[in-house]
């Protein structure tokens, strides 16, 4: 059914299944020798009943983990694959940029490749010849125009391919992970082009793994997981879901558990469990950035103990300790504990850590100069901080910007 006028891309209940032969039968001999053996197939459902639509002039992000169906969706839209079910509608001329390229021939020069691909993407040969210089200028590859493509670096090839794509006057750009390659200067150029394309009212579908890009560029975004549409809407919300999904617990078997034996410490106590709590005191594996939270460890004493020291440390995925706290410097005694007694030790704080996964380490020590360890649990429990800001630092403390012009009072940037 024809989509309404304001819709540039309409996808209705699209499914795509690949039949992967379990034994790739590539020669006739194998068929002749085994005529009765049926080819057995593994079915890979790359897209399952995906529906969405993108308005004209919208900048639409598609995110998802590897193998979630993003590229398959792009290829169906680009007319490279045929969907098994559902309908895809486009309005206006479409230019695809799939798998970092537009299909160059390594044995041809840049000149011939540019002309061929410009025609493939919808220009007439005459238009392609007219725009050739502009394309080479954009790619900054004039001096290499007579070089065969196989002598180009991969970054140069991508630059050339991107240059062709933005010069074919497409109303609709399908871009699959282009901005990840190329040097910083060219990336900036790509951003500028995409901004300009958006101002010109072109519709852009961008597949990316970079949540920063999603939030900077996209009007809306969509999250795919295992071929299904999981979330669609506000880019911040979709990015947050994506990060959650990426750092989701790896399941019962995948998660490294604390070693039962060879635990450090003299064995006078044990750290049974440790976990993160949200502001409401509920145990959780995801903490939202900027909210109050607490880390809790459950300690069981195996002998009578007076005034022990409890310590908690947080390690990020690069192994850096980003936060460590200990009761050693707190005033007041922790008290006396008898053998067999359990206690939950919680340290609460506002969560200003950068989005990502963190591991909790809990420790119980003897008070005194020796700092002898009674019990320790390291690498046991982890949680994920979700947030839509990624400043680049390890922590993201509350902050404000003030602008002060000469002779004027400071202005708070909000």
């Amino acid at each position, binding site marked *: 059914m*024809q*989509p309404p*006028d304001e*819709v540039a891309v*309409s996808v209705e209940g699209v499914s795509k299944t*690949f039949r992967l032969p379990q034994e790739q039968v*590539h*020669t*006739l*001999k194998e068929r002749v020798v085994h005529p009765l053996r049926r080819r057995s197939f593994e079915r890979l459902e790359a897209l399952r009943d995906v529906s969405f639509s993108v308005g*004209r002039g919208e900048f639409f992000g598609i995110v998802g983990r590897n193998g979630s169906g993003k590229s398959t969706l792009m*290829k*169906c*839209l*680009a*007319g*490279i*694959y*045929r*969907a098994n079910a559902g*309908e*895809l*509608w*486009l*309005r*206006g*001329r479409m230019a*695809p940029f*799939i*798998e970092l*390229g*537009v*299909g*160059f*021939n390594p*044995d*041809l020069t840049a000149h*011939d490749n540019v*002309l*061929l*691909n410009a*025609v*493939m*993407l*919808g220009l*007439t*040969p005459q238009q392609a010849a007219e725009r050739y210089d502009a394309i080479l200028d954009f790619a900054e590859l004039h001096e290499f125009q007579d070089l065969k493509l196989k002598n180009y670096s991969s970054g140069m090839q991508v630059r050339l391919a991107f240059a062709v794509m933005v010069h074919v006057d497409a*109303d609709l750009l399908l871009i699959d992970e282009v901005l990840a390659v190329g040097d910083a200067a060219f990336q900036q150029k790509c951003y500028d082009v995409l901004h300009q394309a958006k101002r010109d*009212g072109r519709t852009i579908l961008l597949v990316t793994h970079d949540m920063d890009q999603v939030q900077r560029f996209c009007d809306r975004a969509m999250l795919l997981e295992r071929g299904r549409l999981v979330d669609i809407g506000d880019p911040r919300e979709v990015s947050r879901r994506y990060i959650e999904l990426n750092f989701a617990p790896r399941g019962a078997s995948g998660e490294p558990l604390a070693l039962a034996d060879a635990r450090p410490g003299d064995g006078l106590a044990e750290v049974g469990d440790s976990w993160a709590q949200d502001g409401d005191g509920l145990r959780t594996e995801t903490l939202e950035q900027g909210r109050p939270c607490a880390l809790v460890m459950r300690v069981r004493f195996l002998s009578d103990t007076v005034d022990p020291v409890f310590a908690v440390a947080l390690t990020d995925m690069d192994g850096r300790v980003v936060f460590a706290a200990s009761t050693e410097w707190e005033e007041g005694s922790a008290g006396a504990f008898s053998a067999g007694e359990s206690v939950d030790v919680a340290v609460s704080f506002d969560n200003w850590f950068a989005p990502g996964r963190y591991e909790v380490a809990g420790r119980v020590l003897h008070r005194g100069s020796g700092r002898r360890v009674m019990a320790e649990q390291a690498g046991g429990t982890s949680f994920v901080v979700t947030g839509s800001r990624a400043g680049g630092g390890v922590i993201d403390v509350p902050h404000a910007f003030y602008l002060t012009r000469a002779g004027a009072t400071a202005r708070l940037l909000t």
Partner: protein
Amino acid sequence: MSDVAYRVTGPAAPRDDLGRFWHLTLTLARTDWKVRFFGSALGYLWSLLRPLMLFGILYFVFSEVVGAGEGVQHYPIVLLAGMILYFFFGEVTGAAATSLVDREALVRKVGFPRMVVPLAVTVVGTFNLLLNLVVLAVFLALNGVPVRWTWLLVPLPLVLMGVLATGVGMLLAALYVRFRDIRPIWEVVLQALFYATPILYPIQLVQEKSEALTHVLMASPLAALIQWLRRLLLGDATPSAADAIGGTAWLVVPAAILVVLTVLGFTVFSRMAPQAAEEL
């Protein structure tokens, strides 16, 4: 922005207008042509020189050594006409067979009508054929063959050969995506066809030996088209295809084979083309 929404149903969708289809075919053909002569000093000249040199060798061996041309009027023309058409068929089908795989980068990244790929091969082959016809014209003049009005009909067997070669090429191209043994098999088949077709030996020689064998050989559309071309060029100096096969009615056989192979090729290719990108 155009106001008409269109449905994307895969690469075979003929949503492109004919103009664009033609532009694509020509552009692809031109780059094919360039790639082929990449790195050769004489470049395009080879597409003229190669058949000429082969012709020289075959002419020497079969005319001077074997004596196949004895008593045959205008044997060089008979040989050259057969060679040119056969090489055209061999070149187009051979190159078309691997064309989708050779163009993998493009097929996997751009959605365009897949039929453009084998058609571009036909375009390149046709260009070579036209160059070879110039050579043929020179030899016609050298041999003092009288000009006759039937020369105007020469394009007919050429076009039919083009259609047949394209159809067979598409069939092979579609199969080659899945079965890579198509290539060696087809090379052998082409070799066999070369000797099974009256190219080196004039059909008169076979007629003298066995009338039945002549009929069988002439059932091949290759043989029928080649003999038709010779007749158009040389007139009564060479038997017509109808004479050779044993009556005009029998020409239905090579005609039917031509139609069936062509339709089969187009059909198989159209059905398989949408999956090409997935199976490469």
